[in-house]
């Protein structure tokens, strides 16, 4: 049997389901391939932007939204920096903790948001279906556009140094902006992460234990608007013709589609595909998610169980960790972020793990020992800031997303591969780690559908 769809989404996470549901509601024929159902450990990290909520009418499914209350960085020696979404609250908090740059905060956030060139660059980098010149047309901007282009393509460290003087605050911003994509502060283009970080208002769904989960709700929403589900593993993705991609499943079933979208890099990695050019892609790194179940309840750090926390000594450590990950090592000082799940579990995450390891014999895959080592290091990092944690861990569970087999040559996806004879497929789009994967995926789908 061969079905032909406008869009095939591969993945079983919130971003994939949101993208599929939105596309289906917009009138496209959509298939979703979610090979294996896994227990979703990252659920509480998921941001759900208002506009997606509205378009899917999620309130009708009995969910409710809450804000990420604060962004917290736990520095060494008990130093803590807290910022909020509201500029005024942030200012007050910075004044209270004695950070000199509070006056510049509003201007900084506004300027990062307004990095228009950055947005263009980001969009062009991830996908430019229909019209491939978006990235290069940056060359034709006027003086003002070029000034912002220069900012957007420079490094996060340069952007922060230009603006702020307070090291703790710079570390805080760098940690939160770069953490999700696992980038180093000195890499060109990492300034884009700043513009992305401040661009989107983050809302999250944290359903109570009894209610439906966001994931299952989105799945229902998909089914309600006619998205077709396939649950078999994928055997191969290949180009069928210049404008069509065919996905073969293990049982021989073929699904043809005009576009294939991986809303997160994890799902793509399993099939050997990867995003080609996005400066935020953070290639060569894997994400580790650790769920810590406690023996007995513990008061949350900063008495706030709705905040996102980062643990980082110094902004420079991000680049050191990034270099280590690219080198095939687990970084000594691993930057981690964590937050609290609704049931009190602590979910720890880091995108600074290597995609594969390198020792004297060359590159090798992740082993059970590596996973244990990573879990231990993440727990240690947490315990360095929350001393009472070490004696209170009941069990931990770790998942590695984006680990790659070192001998498998990646297949590139995305723009730039039009009608060429090499191993890339243009109509397959892989989204890198994004600050707000749902929002980004939905916007991407809008552009794909509009580009037709």
């Amino acid at each position: 049997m061969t079905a032909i769809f406008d869009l095939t989404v591969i993945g079983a996470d919130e971003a994939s389901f949101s993208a599929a549901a939105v596309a289906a509601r917009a009138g496209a024929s959509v298939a979703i391939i979610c090979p294996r159902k896994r227990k979703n450990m990252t659920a509480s990290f998921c941001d759900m932007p208002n506009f997606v909520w509205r378009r899917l009418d999620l309130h009708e499914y009995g969910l409710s939204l809450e804000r990420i209350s604060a962004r917290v960085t736990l520095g060494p020696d008990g130093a803590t920096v807290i910022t909020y979404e509201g500029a005024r609250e942030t200012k007050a908090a910075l004044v209270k903790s004695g950070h000199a740059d509070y006056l510049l905060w509003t201007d900084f956030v506004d300027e990062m948001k307004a990095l228009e060139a950055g947005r263009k660059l980001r969009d062009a980098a991830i996908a430019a279906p229909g019209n491939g010149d978006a990235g290069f047309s940056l060359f034709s901007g006027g003086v003002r556009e070029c000034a912002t282009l220069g900012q957007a393509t420079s490094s996060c460290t340069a952007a922060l140094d230009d603006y702020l003087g307070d090291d703790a605050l710079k570390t805080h911003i760098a940690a939160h902006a770069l953490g999700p994509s696992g980038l180093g502060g000195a890499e060109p283009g990492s300034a884009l992460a700043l513009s992305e970080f401040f661009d989107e208002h983050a809302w999250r769904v944290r359903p109570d234990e009894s209610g439906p989960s966001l994931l299952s709700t989105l799945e229902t929403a998909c089914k309600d608007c006619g998205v077709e589900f396939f649950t078999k593993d994928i055997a191969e993705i290949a180009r069928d013709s210049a404008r069509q991609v065919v996905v073969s499943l293990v049982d021989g079933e073929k699904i043809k589609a005009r576009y294939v979208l991986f809303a997160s890099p994890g799902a793509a990695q399993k099939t050997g595909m990867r995003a080609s050019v996005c400066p935020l892609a953070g290639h060569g790194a894997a994400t580790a998610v650790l769920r810590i179940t406690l023996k007995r309840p513990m008061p949350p750090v900063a008495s706030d169980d709705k905040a996102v926390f980062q643990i980082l000594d110094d902004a420079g450590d991000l680049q050191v960790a990034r270099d280590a990950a690219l080198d095939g090592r687990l970084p000594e000082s691993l930057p981690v972020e964590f937050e609290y799940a609704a049931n009190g579990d602590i979910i720890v995450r880091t995108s600074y793990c290597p995609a594969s390891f390198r020792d004297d014999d060359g590159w090798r895959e992740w082993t059970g020992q590596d996973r244990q080592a990573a879990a231990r290091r993440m727990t240690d990092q947490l315990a360095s800031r929350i001393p009472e944690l070490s004696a209170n861990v009941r069990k931990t569970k770790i998942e590695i997303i984006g680990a790659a087999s070192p001998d498998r040559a990646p297949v590139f996806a995305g723009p730039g591969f039009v009608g060429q004879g090499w191993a890339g497929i243009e109509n397959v789009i892989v989204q890198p780690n994004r600050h707000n994967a749902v929002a980004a995926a939905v916007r991407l789908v809008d552009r794909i559908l509009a580009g037709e």
Partner: protein
Amino acid sequence: MIFPAEDVIVDSPRATPLYAAAASASEANIWTSVNGWSLARVFTSVEKEYHAAKNSAAIADLGALSRWAVRGPEAAQFLSRITTAPAPRLGVGESARGLILDGDGGVLDLAEVSRLSDDLFLLTTPTAHARRLQLGARGVDALGEDICEAVAAIGVFGPRASEVLSAAGMKMPGEDVAASAVVRGVETAARPIQFGALPGVELIFPAADALTIWERLVRRGKAGPIGLDAMEILRIESGAPRPGVDFVAADHPGTTTRRTPAEIGLPHLAPLDRGWYNGRRGLRYVATRPERRLVTLSVDDERSMPGAAVYAGGKPVGRITSCAWSPAIKRVVAFADVARPVGAKDYEIAVPAPGEGRVAAKLYETPESALAKAFREAQDAVGNAR
């Protein structure tokens, strides 16, 4: 000095040092927030406050504006770089109005600069520009300090302003010279300002003494407080555009509109033949061809209608940005952002249902537009002479 647009989201506004006094004086109890500070819109009634300011004197809390003290041997150059006000030419005690422009001549904000001593200036702007001041200070020997939190400011307007001040034991500054004095041990600075067409004085003093000074002005000077709504009428009558309402700052996130000084009716605040200021070279390229113009109109109607379409010669040419019913001329006075090529004096304005249709509107000369007109004529004369 004009307040910027009210905050879109009123999210737990802060109290100015004068909040307690204003709260107890506020019978109407209608509040809003500007730059995150609480401000009373109405104290008693809009019309009463308006007439008090016009015929007697009124006092207003000006604590929501952004204020910077700028010090240093090159403070004047620094300010003439940041704003179009001619800071180096100011004598001690003098003030000047100006604009803040971006590198391409787009208007970011209004500004007012006062010279308090040889190397100390006061910069007042509707909204804060911390980043610009930070950048502007690079390579220039001057230091800006945000004093918003430290000081309180009261504006006294109206024909009786000087009486109020002397009754309160304060010296009225000269026609255009600021003065500082110690009132009962409190360091205060007074500088002449114009609010609308009204003469006035702005008093700036340490925040801790805010209530004392306010009380003295009210008790001894017999001045009533004026709220934002009455001030808005005075503002529109005087022809002063309001940032965020009548024009949007060129660097506002997400904005695509840019306005030059001429396009917001303030070409006289950024003359090309005066000292250097940020954006002048960019402005030189765009100043000769303004595409829009902000005009003041008197409308034969009694309803206010921001956003209404403006027609000239039967064609839509723009929209109303802000308007108020003027008790003085018994008409609505409105700011309208219209396409430039229209040389029309007569406009029509769409009025909403019921009785949908258009009403006549005429160009209305305000003190500000008179200045702009005189400036343009002088420029043309120079141009012709060449």
